[in-house]
């Protein structure tokens, strides 16, 4: 069997995305052993939404069997996915959900991801204290879902007060600057909810201010940070969005291309087309184990997990 799969990634701003592509390519390679020849064509570049729509059109022109996309927008691809479906192409989105009825989502629930970090923070602070949040790009759907996640959790804890929320655009240095400004104006904060790479920046400011002992803050999943976390015994917890999500999606895609049917149709999420993957969580209880998984990897390597072929097969009839 021969399948040609197009992978589209519209943002190359983090190593996470690179690892995502690499893991997906490795997953395609793994199908060889099963006698299935999966070739991937990759378009991974910094583009805007129209640019990524062009990715999809290029895949249609190139005649792929399936498209797996980490989309820059939840709704903008509806028309072009419809076109892909007309051309008989299977479309799977990962990492960010899409509204298109012609596509399937395989990835984590970003809202639950945001909530998990908030749950940990609330628990660690014994349900009371002043909290600030440092968010990604305002208006970006993944960011907004995560924000919705923590808001819901903090709302359930009346003694936790979110004193300020700022945006640092998923940029580590901006995260550091934002934290620094926040520390200056709110000397009495107890907790920080911060996402992804910005967490490393925020923690740097917290440590520079000598407040590592008194502040609990969410963390991230790159090896560099996990090492720092271990070394300085940071009071941190990180919910994991594994870069392996695209590999998981690829395995699901191949099985679907083989004509297999899901045991339970993918009907989760607000668009009723999602298949959610589990969200691992790292805190002091399993930090060592996480450190072991990333041992020997470069500093930018993220803690990961993915559906193996057999994991995926188990989901099909």
């Amino acid at each position: 069997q021969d399948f040609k799969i197009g992978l589209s990634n519209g943002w190359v701003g983090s190593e996470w995305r690179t690892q995502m592509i690499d893991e997906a390519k490795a997953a395609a390679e793994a199908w060889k052993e099963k006698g299935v020849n999966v070739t991937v064509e990759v378009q991974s570049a910094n583009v805007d939404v129209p640019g990524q729509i062009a990715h999809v059109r290029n895949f249609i022109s190139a005649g792929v069997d399936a498209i797996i996309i980490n989309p820059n927008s939840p709704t903008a691809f509806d028309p072009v996915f419809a076109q892909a479906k007309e051309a008989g192409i299977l479309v799977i989105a990962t990492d960010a959900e899409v509204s298109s009825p012609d596509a399937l989502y395989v990835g984590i629930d970003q809202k639950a991801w945001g909530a998990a970090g908030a749950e940990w923070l609330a628990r660690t602070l014994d349900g009371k204290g002043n909290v600030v949040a440092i968010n990604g790009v305002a208006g970006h759907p993944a960011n907004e879902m995560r924000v919705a996640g923590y808001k819901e959790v903090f709302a359930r804890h009346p003694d936790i007060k979110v004193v300020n929320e700022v945006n640092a655009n998923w940029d580590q240095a901006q995260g550091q600057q934002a934290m620094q400004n926040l520390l200056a104006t709110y000397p009495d904060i107890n907790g920080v909810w911060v996402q992804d790479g910005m967490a490393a920046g925020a923690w740097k400011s917290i440590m520079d201010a000598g407040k590592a002992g008194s502040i609990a803050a969410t963390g991230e999943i790159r090896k560099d940070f996990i090492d720092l976390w271990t070394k300085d015994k940071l009071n941190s917890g990180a919910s994991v969005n594994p870069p392996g999500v695209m590999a998981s999606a690829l395995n699901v895609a191949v099985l679907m291309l083989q004509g297999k049917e899901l045991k339970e149709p993918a009907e989760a999420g607000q668009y009723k087309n999602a298949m959610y993957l589990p969200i691992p969580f790292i805190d002091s209880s399993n930090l060592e184990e996480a450190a072991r998984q990333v041992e020997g990897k470069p500093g930018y390597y993220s803690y990961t997990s993915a559906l193996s072929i057999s994991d995926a097969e188990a989901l099909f009839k």
Partner: protein
Amino acid sequence: MSTVTTFLRQPLVVALILIAALLWLGETLSPGFASGQQILRLLIVAALLGIVAAGQNLVILGGREGIDLSVGGVVSLSAIIAGNLMAGENGGISLAILACILTGAFFGLINGIGVTLLRIPPLVMTLGMLGVLQGLLVVVRQGIPSGRAAPALADFVSRDFLLGLPGILWLWVAIGLVMAFLLSRTVFGHRIYAIGSNEQAAFMAGVPVKVIRIALFVLSGVFAAIAGICLLGYSGSSFANVGEQYMLASIIAVVFGGTPLSGGKGGYTGTMAGAFLLVILQSILTTVNIDESGRQMVFGATLLVLMLFYGRGRSMRA
């Protein structure tokens, strides 16, 4: 009376007054904002921007629509190269600095050649170069692990170095002095103003127009590279597009400092104040608790209002 008005019209004076006003506003909105420690931290952030703006300032002074949109790309690339070369070890610092400066100079040289020998408008040339650098960042980052700052570099940027001030502030002051000397007391400086003000006349008076202009772009690349190294020291590790935020910010700092984009007049002292002003403004906006949409609207509107103090062009009717 008229000397007072003239004094108050000087861009540097305007910037300093606005800085004082903003600090006061910041302190009012969120007590603690104008504390000594916080001002010091803001100055560090301003120094990063100010160093980029030094090169931007030179390119703009040189006229012929001089502008360097590629500085952000060079900052990012330099941070990544420096991080990889020093990989957290003090021993790698000198090599890293050398490599970064050469890299910055190289891209500046290409910009300069494109602008002078091929006569591509600077905005176009450096915009195109930005695209190339952003692409290069992707390539570089996929190939090499992004590294970490040497401890000595991190200390230089954020710890006491001399008289209670971190090294980066001393570096910034030194750059300020060198720039002031360069622009007012050297032939090179006079030639920069000459080509910025009337290139044809400069050419007819034997000024090596192309060499000077190429040198300005090279210097811009070098300053961006130095800023990249410092930025690595500031954030500890390097990552994608760190420098992106400096592209337009450096231009605004120059304009707030009293150097018009048409070139030929202005200087760096004002730019330093302009950089600090911009950083304070951004920082006030992060600390006030409003929606991001509100922050952006206030930021945009404030920039416009501040510009009314500076960049206004002359009335066409004299």
